[in-house]
């Protein structure tokens, strides 16, 4: 056990004893978790209509969590020494969307989190208009106060349910070159954002050759259902799998891997400072259907995503 403050011999003995018992009965994993939890400092918590939004700091890392001690997943993290660098893997994977559409003029992001993606995109593409839809006003205020997120003339935040906004935007005949879906967490999936009807609406919102990037799951029974549902709307798509899963689909013809590769090389100097790994991302590009094609489609009529995600 690592402790920064000196302990008395009793304390040492106790710690040793506890460590032995813990190792014997609970195992090393639990012990490491305890050590991490001990160094975690809660610096802010805010209750909202939906949940408690918590901000923890561990060393130079600041994270937004929706559960105490970040028990179930971290929403987003910020490197306080270098706020523009993605620490977590999935947002830098999401940037692979730019390999399919290097210069999007209009971007819609569903799910703000700490706002790292809109922040980076605004720096990268100063001329692009970025709309972020976030359902929870508390997440917006925490992102502003603790995660250096600042709306601007080009970056606007809309407090709304993702699907409600998508429907409204269709009615107003808006179109986006790039749509990024990042509204899921490990605890709960908004089921109406994972149905064939919703994906059709998103597709209708994309401009010709527009790109959809979705951050989702890579495991559980839901994988098959999710894959079949995306395939039913977009046909072939790029399926990037690590701990998370990022789906890249287009409204038109899916660009070839060679084209994505060329774009990734050209963009790498611009993306490098943000911690985007072009080579590693390109290695993940595949259109292989590694799922059960017979899985049932998710629709507005049949959407037990949370029950399937176990």
């Amino acid at each position, binding site marked *: 056990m690592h402790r920064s403050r000196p302990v008395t011999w009793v304390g040492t003995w106790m710690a040793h004893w506890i460590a032995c018992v813990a190792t014997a009965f609970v195992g090393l994993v639990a012990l490491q978790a305890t050590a991490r939890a001990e160094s975690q400092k809660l610096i802010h918590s805010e209750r909202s*209509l939906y949940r408690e939004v918590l901000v923890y700091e561990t060393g130079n890392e600041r994270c937004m969590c929706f559960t105490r001690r970040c028990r179930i997943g971290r929403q987003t993290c910020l490197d306080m020494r270098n706020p523009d660098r993605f620490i977590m893997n999935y947002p830098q994977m999401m940037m692979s969307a730019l390999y399919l559409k290097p210069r999007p003029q209009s971007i819609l992001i569903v799910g703000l989190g700490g706002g790292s993606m809109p922040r980076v995109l605004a720096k990268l593409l100063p001329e692009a208009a970025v709309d972020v839809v976030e*359902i929870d006003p508390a997440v917006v205020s925490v992102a502003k106060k603790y995660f250096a997120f600042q709306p601007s003339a080009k970056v606007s935040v809309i407090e709304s*349910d993702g699907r409600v906004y998508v429907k409204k935007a269709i009615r107003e005949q808006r179109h986006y070159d790039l749509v990024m879906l990042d509204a899921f967490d490990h605890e709960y999936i*908004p*089921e*109406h954002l994972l149905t064939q009807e919703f994906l059709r609406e998103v597709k209708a919102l994309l401009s010709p050759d527009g790109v959809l990037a979705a951050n989702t799951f890579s495991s559980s029974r839901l994988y098959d259902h999710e894959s079949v549902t995306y395939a039913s709307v977009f046909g072939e798509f790029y399926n990037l799998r690590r701990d998370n899963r990022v789906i890249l689909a287009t409204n038109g013809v899916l660009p070839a891997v060679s084209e994505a590769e060329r774009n990734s090389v050209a963009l790498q100097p611009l993306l490098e400072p943000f911690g985007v790994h072009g080579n590693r991302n390109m290695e993940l590009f595949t259109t292989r259907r590694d799922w059960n094609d017979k899985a049932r489609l998710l629709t507005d009529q049949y*959407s037990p995503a949370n029950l399937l995600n176990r």
Partner: protein
Amino acid sequence: MQVILSYVIAGWSGFFVMAVELLGGRLLAPSFGSGIYVWGAIITIFMLALSLGYLAGGRWSVDRPSVRRLGGILLLAAVTVLPILMFGDAMLDWVAETIADPRGASLLAAICLFFVPTFFSGMISPYAVRLLVNDRASSGKHAGQLYFVSTFGSAAGTLLTSFYLVLILEVNQILLALMGISLLLGVAACVVRGSANASE
């Protein structure tokens, strides 16, 4: 027979109401999301419709009560779910386009879709109490048993629908199945011999 039917209908009605309420969340989600406003609106309208239904059911039980009429109420509650299946989507689109505020919109949507069937469902329990109570001394006992059956049915409807039925069937298929069972029970109550008060 009439006593059993009164209990069964009350229990089933409890099941029916909660199953429809949970599915109501599913139906509203594509247009209004699944946030706290939407659930707040749904629960408000269900409670309001039930409360008015209790009042109406109690009043109506004064005039020549019978199991046949109780079955009739159950049939009405089932039949008025049909418009949800037939015009639900069009109605939701219309509300979403008319009202911008998510709270007002989900309230109006919940009223349009669920008020009428839930109102009729609310009539069931007080009406059934009238059929079961023989005298003042046992009235509390009968009412308690009826509340038990009805609320236990609600618990079962909530659990089965949210944990299992949505995993097997589509929303509309579940609604049709619920209607089917209500129709069977309602018809059974209508054809059961003797229309007199069960307690007489």
